[in-house]
């Protein structure tokens, strides 16, 4: 057994009210890919921040080649050859590609100034080696698409000759073709003897590219080993702490009349020819890759994005929501993907968050009646089983799951017809996740209609009555969810009918 390149032992890191990492360890080996697996909130991103010197752990030891090191700043991590490629690219839009690659360690002239010519040449060389001939080193980063930005991030990792490369969900926003390119690149990095930490939700990818795995759950390490020796079901068992098939609630589906009909909706740059309908009591799943245009369609329904043509027919009446306020009035509400920035107002108390869209109802003649607000908040927080110390607690001090409950409570209080949930369980813990799913089931049983956007295949397949698959701004197919539908089929459809791609083995 080789000695690990990087070892983490007994790392602890806590935030007010949360123990994000509770004595976890991790080993990375040169020339191998280790997959870090865990649900959202398991502590993966905290670990990445510890490794990159953004967070300092309270306890524990980090060593490289057996020598203990300290990562006090991001610069230190840089110095030890640790680099991270993040899921949301953290790069600089206004700077050139070459500069993004070399910021902080640019080649210098003898005067100590930046040698632009050498920097551009070096960037060119790295990009060429990576097979990214199509990226011009002098263009501004903002001109590039998401996949190309990822390549720039990888180039940055290569440029510092990092021995330890962390990839935090690098494939989340990529197409299958682009993922293939990335895998080729990872293989290339492996052959150079780099130790790679690969964080992903997608088991097919993990089994294709990784050699080892480490599983975290609720801030603790619950298992690790060689992937070749372990079945996927065992890993999932470790990850969620129970058998998978229990996650989704069973419900009786009783579809009513069509409540919402979308006809030929178009947007100049984001989506085209969108047609679908939604029935009373239905959960309609929207599946596709990140950047497929799902959120954009939803935001058009919610009045945020203006469409160029098309019809939105709600209860038989054509509506043209010009703002969220219009949409809410019509009875369409939206639980956004970005909870922290779009969902809750973090510095306002819980009850004010819940009453915000319903203020007209809780006030008299525009004058606030706080007793009514509290009454409304009490009713809906108890329905959703919100965990907080009081209704006056700031929304931002709650966990992701509880914040999500606030957002849902806020919308239920408006008594909507259609509720759109955009990645409703992204970044929340298992318990809240199940509660959200259960609550969705409850809602449709009461006759509400739900549109659920999700990138998680199990969630889509476990919850939806029908599934709309989107790719590159178009609806590819609308599928009825029944026993015949397998994850493999779904993946093939979502990849844009690219039959040559084989999905990995699934449980």
């Amino acid at each position: 057994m080789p000695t690990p390149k990087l070892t983490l032992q007994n790392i602890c890191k806590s935030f007010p009210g949360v123990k994000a990492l509770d004595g976890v360890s991790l080993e990375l080996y040169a020339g191998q890919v280790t997959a870090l697996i865990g649900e959202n909130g398991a502590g993966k991103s905290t670990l990445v921040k510890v490794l990159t010197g953004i967070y300092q752990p309270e306890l524990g030891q980090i060593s490289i080649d057996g020598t203990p090191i300290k990562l006090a700043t991001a610069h230190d991590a840089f110095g030890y050859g640790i680099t991270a490629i993040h899921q949301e690219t953290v790069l600089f839009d206004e700077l050139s590609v070459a500069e993004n690659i070399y910021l902080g360690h640019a080649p210098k002239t003898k005067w100590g100034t930046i040698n632009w010519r050498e920097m551009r040449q070096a960037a060119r060389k790295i990009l060429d080696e990576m097979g990214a001939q199509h990226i011009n080193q002098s263009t501004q980063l903002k001109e590039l698409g998401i996949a190309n930005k990822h390549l720039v991030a990888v180039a940055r990792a290569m440029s510092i000759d990092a021995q330890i490369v962390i990839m935090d969900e690098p494939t989340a926003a990529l197409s299958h073709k682009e993922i293939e390119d990335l895998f080729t690149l990872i293989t290339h990095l492996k052959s150079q003897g780099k130790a790679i930490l690969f964080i992903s939700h997608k088991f097919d990818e993990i089994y294709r590219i990784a050699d080892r795995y480490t599983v975290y759950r609720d801030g603790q390490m619950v298992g690790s080993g060689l992937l070749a020796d372990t079945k996927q079901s065992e890993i999932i068992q470790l990850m969620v702490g129970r058998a998978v098939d229990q996650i989704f609630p069973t419900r009786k589906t009783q579809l009513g009349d069509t409540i919402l009909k979308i006809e030929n909706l178009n947007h100049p740059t984001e989506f085209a020819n969108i047609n679908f309908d939604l029935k009373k009591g239905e959960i309609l799943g929207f599946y596709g890759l990140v950047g497929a245009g799902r959120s954009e369609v939803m935001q058009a329904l919610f009045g945020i994005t203006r469409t160029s043509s098309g019809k939105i027919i709600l209860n038989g009446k054509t509506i043209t929501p010009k703002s969220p306020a219009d949409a809410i009035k019509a009875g369409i509400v939206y639980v956004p993907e970005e909870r922290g920035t779009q969902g809750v107002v973090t510095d306002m108390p819980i009850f004010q968050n819940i009453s915000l869209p319903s203020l007209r109802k809780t006030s008299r003649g525009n004058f606030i009646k706080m007793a009514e607000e509290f009454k409304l908040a009490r009713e809906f927080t108890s329905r959703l089983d919100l965990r907080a110390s009081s209704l006056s607690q700031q929304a931002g001090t709650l966990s992701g799951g509880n914040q999500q409950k606030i957002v849902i409570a806020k919308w239920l209080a408006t008594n909507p017809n259609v509720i759109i949930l955009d990645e409703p369980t992204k970044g929340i813990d298992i318990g809240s996740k199940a509660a959200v799913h259960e609550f969705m089931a409850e809602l449709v049983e009461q006759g509400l209609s739900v549109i659920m956007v999700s990138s998680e295949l199990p969630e889509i397949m476990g919850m939806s009555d029908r599934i709309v698959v989107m790719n590159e701004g178009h609806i590819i197919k609308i599928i009825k969810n029944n026993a015949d539908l397998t994850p493999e089929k779904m993946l093939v459809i979502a990849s844009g009918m690219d039959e040559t791609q084989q999905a990995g083995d699934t449980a």
Partner: protein
Amino acid sequence: MKNLLKSREFWLATGIIIIIFGVTLRAPGFARFANLADVFNNTSMLIILALGQMVVILTRSIDLSMAANLALSGMIVALINAAYPQFPIPLLMLIASLCGLALGAFNGILVWKLNIPAIVVTLGTLTIFRGTIFLLAGGQWVNASELSDSFIQMTRHNFLGMPLLSWFAILIAAAFFLFMTRTPTGRNLYAIGVNPTASVYAGINVGKAKFISFCISGLMSGFCGFLWVSRYVIGSVEVANGYELTIIAACVIGGISIAGGVGTVVGTILGALFLGIINSALPVINISPFWQMAISGSSIILAVILNARSARNKGRLILKQKSEGKT
């Protein structure tokens, strides 16, 4: 070529040339080199100050205390000069610069260590600096007869056909150009303005970079304090009163985005020159100077509108990506 046509600097420069051309049609003397050199000389201090402000705005802060800092640093050297006329002038220049640097560092520390918004810090220090001048000088002005001749001549010496003041501006502009494009620190300042989060990941200390930017704006204010006293031959509480907003205006016209991260040294210089030329062109073409304020106000609004148009968020461009993929 396409890039050139897209750049703000190109359009701003074109605008300036058109104005010069237009004014020259009515007043032929305007485009003479001597006159243009004079306009440049008049704008020198605004250029230096705007460059200092640019660095601060790039890091998503703002420095309202520059003019007050300038006045205080200027008063200190004016008082020294009045009391000790033999005191070497280069040393005075250094003292003014260091004084400005110290005041800027004070702003920077408050922003960095106490995390107070820059606008609040500098709003506070702006009044503190002004008040301190009054206390220091006991309410008196330092006027022409009290200042030594060598001090007054410092900005006026002619060197290769231009006053030293112009040369200072040129040298400082060149230094800024090198600093912002060629040094790691300069690039870091851009980076933290573009994306503070990403900067932390890239190992840049955001608070410290802001501190540095305030030190730079302070240094420029202090140096201009020296120049101001020498040029206008006066030290008083009222020196450069209200000038802080003119400095910011020059930056904005020059295409510096108040949201940080966007803007260039050349743009800033052009922004300052634009104001300088408007300033000197109006009396020449017999437009009442009373128009000047409204014109510069309109230019600011116009500049912001144009900058905002070019920087508009374009969304994900999902459909376009597809068409790109096919070709």
